[in-house]
């Protein structure tokens, strides 16, 4: 096994990857990258590389899964076999099944499901490379893909995790910190509505530490939200120029 580092964060508050406690990894997003999908987005969050395609609203098959008064949201979180250190079998693992569910539940509050009864949207998340915090990066991209599909939303959903390494609460753990750290708290958030739509925690945290972690994660979310909005503006701004009076 690899030798475990002595400390994950040193006395000066610098982490193994050079970041400070409340520093995010770099985030880059692109919208509208898959020509065949109704909406799509690609995100690089630290070393995470995740692609999301959205189809719909469209009729639900099999029909008995459709709901007469609202839209159904289906979500599949899946990791490519080459996305992790040790090749992962392509068959869905229990973790992927759970994540598919919690990610769906994080996106659903943002969608106006009552507007299009008897239809469904499919959200397909493919993790091409994983380095800790994939569910958060996936949610950030998935929400953009849903907006890119022209589906009406209450707000974009953005996600970020906080956690504890050694004795310090830090923002945005990468894989090594998640594995060797004391706790991980992923949070998904709709900033304009101050609504947390995903919250999980594993590890051990004193209640005050948990409060610090949640607040830190929410602040991280707000920063990534700006990146999301910018990505949408970039895609749709290229054809928009201030309109003058027409002849």
């Amino acid at each position, binding site marked *: 096994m690899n030798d475990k580092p002595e400390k994950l964060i040193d006395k000066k508050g610098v982490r193994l990857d050079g970041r400070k406690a409340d520093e995010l990894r770099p985030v880059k997003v692109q919208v509208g990258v898959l020509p065949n999908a109704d909406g799509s987005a690609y995100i690089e969050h630290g070393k995470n590389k995740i692609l999301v395609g959205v189809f719909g609203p469209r009729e639900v098959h099999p029909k008995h899964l459709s709901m007469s008064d609202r839209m159904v949201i289906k979500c599949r979180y899946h990791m490519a076999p080459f996305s992790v250190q040790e090749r992962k079998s392509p068959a869905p693992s229990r973790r992927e099944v759970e994540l598919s569910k919690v990610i769906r539940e994080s996106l659903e509050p943002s969608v106006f499901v009552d507007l299009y009864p008897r239809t469904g949207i499919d959200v397909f998340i493919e993790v091409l490379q994983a380095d800790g915090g994939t569910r958060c990066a996936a949610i950030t991209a998935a929400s953009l893909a849903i907006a890119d599909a*022209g*589906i009406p939303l209450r707000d974009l959903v953005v996600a970020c995790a906080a956690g504890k390494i050694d004795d310090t609460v830090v923002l945005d753990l990468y894989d090594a910190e998640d594995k060797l750290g004391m706790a991980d708290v992923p949070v998904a958030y709709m900033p304009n509505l101050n609504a947390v739509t995903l919250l999980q925690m594993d590890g051990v945290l004193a209640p005050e530490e948990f409060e610090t972690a949640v607040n830190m994660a929410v602040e991280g979310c707000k920063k990534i939200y700006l990146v999301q909005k910018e990505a949408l503006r970039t895609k749709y701004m290229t054809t*928009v120029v201030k*309109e003058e009076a027409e002849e």
Partner: protein
Amino acid sequence: MPTFFEKKQLVTPGELLAEGDYQPGENTYMEENRIYAQRIGLVDAENKRVNVVALRAFYVPKVGDIVIGTVIEVGFNGWTVDIKAPYTAMLRASDVLSRPFKPQNDELSQVLNAGDLIVAKIASYDRAHDPQLTVGEPGLGKITRGQIMRVTPTKVPRVIGRKGSMISNIKQETGCQIILGVNGVILVTGKNTADEELAMMAIRKIEEESHTSGLTDRITQLLKEEKSKMEENKT
């Protein structure tokens, strides 16, 4: 009572547009007394009504819309038609056949088969039922010639232009017949493929540059230039 945007500003879903004495218009929603955007688009207010012109939206059927669709299935008493909407549409046999319909005798696939294109009108549609189509009016029915292209439905009004100016120019310059489905599917029928491609290129350009000004003139200019090139190549 404030608004939080400039005229025609690009807004994203969830962005706060106004607070107080305003009404939520297109692609917006209201929470308590605040109005937020639902889609990516350009925001504007008209008489206290805040609207967002969506830059990205799918087609939602409305009774009376002319649409172009593809037959996907021949059923027992009609056809299922893909109109590029969240719901598939139905065209009843009784609507197409001018005489009473006998399931045993009439072979529906002879009339319309899977893969056929039709121009139709939305006859009925509501929350509980899929849209029903009709082809019982002049100009509607099976498409036999021409080329099909798709634009995002929000751009169709731009292709039409103010008082139809844009679409008339294209028709004039290319000599093509153009049917614009409200669902973003467009049929271009010309005397030859070169004319049809010219018209299609112009429409694609409109979709790309839809929010620039002076577009109608530029398109007309472009069409004239291309046509003279075509004439030169002929001689």
